């Protein structure tokens, strides 16, 4: 519970369970609270009878949105609050469980205006049209998708198809364009609607069926009686399907398993009491086994471990005694981290300030602004900001990016970073490799090659790496004052004075000398 506002007689509750749509409505929360507090026993929703409504499904919906499930709920106690709650449940389910209406979406209609059989069929986006909900003008299906706010939001679910889904009343009038919008004439429920047709369409038959169960169970909480409908698929699902399916699912729970997982010693009777409070009718069938019923709307129960969690919540986890695991293990840093620590220690001893910069940056920064040519790098498909579009291949640009913001800060500035870079290998295997590198820069009026080379030598000599520096050309650096750092045949990195045009590109005005190295492998012993 988040807060209790006694003045306005309202409680705000945080629902974290994104797998638990049965409590995404006032009705569902009230139901869960009643059983949790022991006011009522959990009871499966009852199917009162057949509504007599039939739905025929056009086989051309196959690739577009093949599934539909319907039910009529009669005699609900209508009110403004009830209507608000159902619309909010509809929106939440469409968004999350229905995956933004792609997998499933819900429609409400006044059952009294409905004539059997409904036809779930397809329509041509240009030739077919109706007055969409909240509008006064007739629009073609395409106009709805292109202009109506709901069409703009959800049109992507159907717009790539030639023909679009349509739900037609028994008299041929259009009820809705699933999953976009209902008709203004026939697809509207109000705060005085007592008899409601609930329709769910979608691309996954299980999601469609589950969504229907949860919605009708919520409506039934307001006194509604649930009536079934039949769906006739003209394709491979030739047998008519009756919905909603309100059968509970049964799982066996081992008392021993539950106690082991909780670290507890609950007796079967205590467990049954807690399971009932969690909304699961249960009884003992043998010494160790409980037969637990999960009501039709409890789609979150996939495994007996889910029942154990419900058990723990009903018992209140704060009543369990925390116990540090009594196992003996040897702790330690990763060898890589140990290596980085040694390098950091030496750099700090040399007077360099450690830095932390973003590894996600942009090729404008780590390639173009360094005066080098673009080669392979790991580029994002869906960047959010133009400044963060790719993973850097080296550190020095990140360091310069920091230095450019500090031209007013006291010099000398001596800084270093040990951080991850990503190189692209395109070898058909992992394709990329994360490599830690070390880079350092010194900036002041007299910064130069000798100073940075001394640091480099000290660093590598301290960790026992044998190396030589050979002249090289690298456009970020001044020719004649740049060397490649070689350890045997292996190229470790580069050391030199930054080229004045690169210094200017970064809006700096003092000499910069720098090195960047792959982290050298550790010597044995």
């Amino acid at each position: 519970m988040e807060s209790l506002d006694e003045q306005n007689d309202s409680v705000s509750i945080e629902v974290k369970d994104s797998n638990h749509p049965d409590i995404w409505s006032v009705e569902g929360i009230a139901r869960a609270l009643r059983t949790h507090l022991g006011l009522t026993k959990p009871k499966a929703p009852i199917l009162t009878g057949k509504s007599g409504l039939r739905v025929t499904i056009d086989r051309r919906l196959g690739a577009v949105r093949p599934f539909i499930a319907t039910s009529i709920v009669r005699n609900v106690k209508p009110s403004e609050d009830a209507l608000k709650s159902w619309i909010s449940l509809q929106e939440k389910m469409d968004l999350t469980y229905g995956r933004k209406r792609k997998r499933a979406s819900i429609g409400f209609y006044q059952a009294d205006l409905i004539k059997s059989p409904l036809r779930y069929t397809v329509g041509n986006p240009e030739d077919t049209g109706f007055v969409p909900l909240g509008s006064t003008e007739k629009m073609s299906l395409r106009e709805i998708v292109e202009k109506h706010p709901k069409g703009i939001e959800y049109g992507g679910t159907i717009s790539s198809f030639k023909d679009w889904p349509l739900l037609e009343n028994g008299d041929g009038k259009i009820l809705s364009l699933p999953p976009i919008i209902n008709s203004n004439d026939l697809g509207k429920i109000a705060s005085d609607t007592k008899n409601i047709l609930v329709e769910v369409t979608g691309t996954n038959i299980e999601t469609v069926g589950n969504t229907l169960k949860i919605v009708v169970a919520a409506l039934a909480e307001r006194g509604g009686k649930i009536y079934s409908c039949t769906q006739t698929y003209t394709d491979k699902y030739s047998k008519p399907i009756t919905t909603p399916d309100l059968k509970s699912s049964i799982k066996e729970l081992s008392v021993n398993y539950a106690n082991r997982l909780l670290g507890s010693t609950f007796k079967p009777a205590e467990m049954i009491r807690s399971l009932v409070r969690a909304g699961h009718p249960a009884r003992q069938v043998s010494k160790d086994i409980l037969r637990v019923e999960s009501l039709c709307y409890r789609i979150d129960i996939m495994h007996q471990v889910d029942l154990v969690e419900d058990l723990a919540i009903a018992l209140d986890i704060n009543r369990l005694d925390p116990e540090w695991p009594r196992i003996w293990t040897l702790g330690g840093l990763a060898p890589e981290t140990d290596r980085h620590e040694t390098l950091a220690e030496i750099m700090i001893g040399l007077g360099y300030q450690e830095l932390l910069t973003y590894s996600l940056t942009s090729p404008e920064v780590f390639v173009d602004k360094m005066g080098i040519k673009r080669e392979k790098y790991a580029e994002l498909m869906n960047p959010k900001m133009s400044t963060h579009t790719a993973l850097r291949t080296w550190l020095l640009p990140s360091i310069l990016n920091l230095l450019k913001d500090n031209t007013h800060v006291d010099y000398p500035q001596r800084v270093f970073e040990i951080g991850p870079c990503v190189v692209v290998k395109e070898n058909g295997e992992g394709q990329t490799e994360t490599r830690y590198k070390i880079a350092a820069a010194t900036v002041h009026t007299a910064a130069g090659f000798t100073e940075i080379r001394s640091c480099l030598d000290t660093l590598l000599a301290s960790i026992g790496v044998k190396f030589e520096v050979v002249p090289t050309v690298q456009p970020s650096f001044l020719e004649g004052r740049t060397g490649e750092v070689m350890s045997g045949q292996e190229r470790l990195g580069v050391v030199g004075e930054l080229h004045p045009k690169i210094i200017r590109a970064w809006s700096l005005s003092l000499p910069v000398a720098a090195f960047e190295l792959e982290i050298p492998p550790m010597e044995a012993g």
Partner: protein
Amino acid sequence: MRENDVKVLRTLRDAGGIASAEDIIRKAGIVDAAVARASLTLSELGLVKEQTTRTTEIFCTEEGHDYLANGLPERRVATVVHDAGGKLSVSEAVQQAGLPQDFVSIVTGWIARKRWGKIEKTSSGNILLISKNPPKDEDEEVLERIGHVSIPIEELPSNLRQAADRLLKRNILASKERVQRKLQITPQGLDAIPAQASVDEISSLTSEMILSGDWKRVHLRSYNVSSPVPSLSPGKYHPYLRFLRRVKRKLVALGFREAVGPLVETAFINDDCLYMPQDHPAREIHDLYYLKHPSKASLESWKEIVEKVAQTHENGWKTGSTGWGYKYSREEASKLVLRSHGTALSVRSMISKDLQIPGKYFAIARCFRPELLDRTHLTEFNQAEGIVLDPSLNLRNLLGVLEMFAREVAGADRVRFKPDYFPFTEPSVELQAYKEGYGWMEFGGSGIFRPEVTEPLGIKVPVIAWGLGIDRLFMMNQQIQDIRQLFTTDLEWIRQQKVG
């Protein structure tokens, strides 16, 4: 009076009675600490007076440097329009001037305010009319004057000061307060200057004096040891990395072994192995960074696990679960993503051939999510994550682990637990910690991995998984309000953070 005192008085007299410390250092040829000591002594004797003046130094921002090189946006657009014959649509002109389209309103605004041209509204958009190339204006003059250095705003003539204020508001210039101390000689000070400098004092001890024993015969001048000295900027750990090192030490002390792994993962490791269905909202492009180049990796080396994970997603495999009931796509699994949570590293630990049971593993993982940067969001951030594996583990052990972290890592006084939800753990528990002065805070999430996670990876014992909000804990410790501070480019802040 000592030698340096006299030198300072002489320098002041020669400079017309008043000079800044920098001037004295240069002219008297003594170091700044000596000037500071001398000025302290002399002002105590009433021979000099200190005057403090505050100036506002202005300098170009990064944007300002750009305009310095390429011209102000309105200038660039005006030139384009003029060169195009004096008439051009605004958006066309902005584009030709090499500026993004969101500059349209800025540029038209300034051109109108500076009366450089007219804006004609037509049905097809706004047209700019600029008949003659406008002469250089005050804004541009200020920008040129400043160039790549910083100057006191007070030195600008008043008409240019207004222009500087405009540029400050436009973020083209930035400013910094500067306090300048000057020394002024008093009449008593002028009288006190001796005709000849006294030389009976020695200021520096030399190696020769030490070796020869001469130090016994000379008089070594006393220093004012209380006076201020220049500050140094030593090499230090970055404040946030220092904090992470401390967290790592705690975890190692608790018997956890560190795990490391790549920033780029397959969706298989990042999500599938954690039983996150392939159409889970957290896998949408709004919540997960996908790579464009390269976009996929081979899953060949995980072949056997892929098979089991696929079946678990589809129908529960042998785990006793119903599964998610959808068609698993190996194509989707092979997509490359940026690691979005530290739990990916726990997966890496579990599938490693070096895994030990009983075992405790942790990782401080750099993670990525498509967020815009603001006070509470980073697109690149850190998570502390870990697992504990042993046949004996249960939910009470999970609570025990959380309680230990709250006390040892966060220094919390009390803890409480709330049920939580993650697709990969069941039961799941949120840790709330109470700290005097802060109240109750959400501090981490945890749970026991679902059998649908562990069994396909070949693990048959309970696995406790935990994650700590490490970025937030650091912010609390350092009293930081804005999460962007973790990756700040402010070197002064990095240098000056207290080391606790």
